[in-house]
């Protein structure tokens, strides 16, 4: 996942690399997703996630488009 100064730079990057546009989020959205995704990563109890748990995190973060289907 790459950082861009604005939407315009994403368009440049996609054209230059001949790639289709993926999904774009604000840093505030990714910060909220990060807290859900990584908050327990140092714990001994973290053993990875089930498909259902991943889907629940995306839903909780408001990521409900087909792009986020698990």
């Amino acid at each position, binding site marked *: 996942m790459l950082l861009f*100064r604005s939407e315009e730079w994403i368009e440049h*990057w996609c054209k230059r690399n001949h*790639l289709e546009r993926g*999904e774009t989020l*604000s*840093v505030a959205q990714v910060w909220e997703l*990060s807290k859900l995704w990584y908050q327990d990563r140092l*714990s*001994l109890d973290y053993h990875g996630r089930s498909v259902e748990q991943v889907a629940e995190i995306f839903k909780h973060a408001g990521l409900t488009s087909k*792009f986020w289907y698990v």
Partner: protein
Amino acid sequence: MDNTESPLWQVRAFVYNHFADTTHPPRVEDAARHFNIEIEEVSALYKELHNRHALFLEPETLTIRMANPFSGIPTDFRVHTNGKTYFANCAWDMLGIPAALSSRSDALIEAVCAESNESVQLEIRDGEIISSELLKIHFPLPFARWYDDLLFT
């Protein structure tokens, strides 16, 4: 092997906490010494964790390249927090490091725009992110394809 007490999950937690404490991944020798077990046993556990996507080894080696959100090599995403500097694997992981360490810890993040190559700074302060509203993070592949090519993702 799926209970918390199993060597696999103990080694996984050791890797992550070593990263958090030192900013670097532990070598197999470090883990063997910590658990007082043979290097061969740790090697097998590292490979099993790699196979389960719990960490990512450099090809044909036992060197940890990634234990998301931490990177074992320098990148364009530096996270300064708690008096230490970490490297993140990507733009998501640069936010993942403060979240993993504790979302209440302040952090200064230095990154680079992937297209303009300009430097960008963000801050986490009191659990809130402070940055330009124009900044965007692009996810090139849908979730279903993230593990097809982890380096590209």
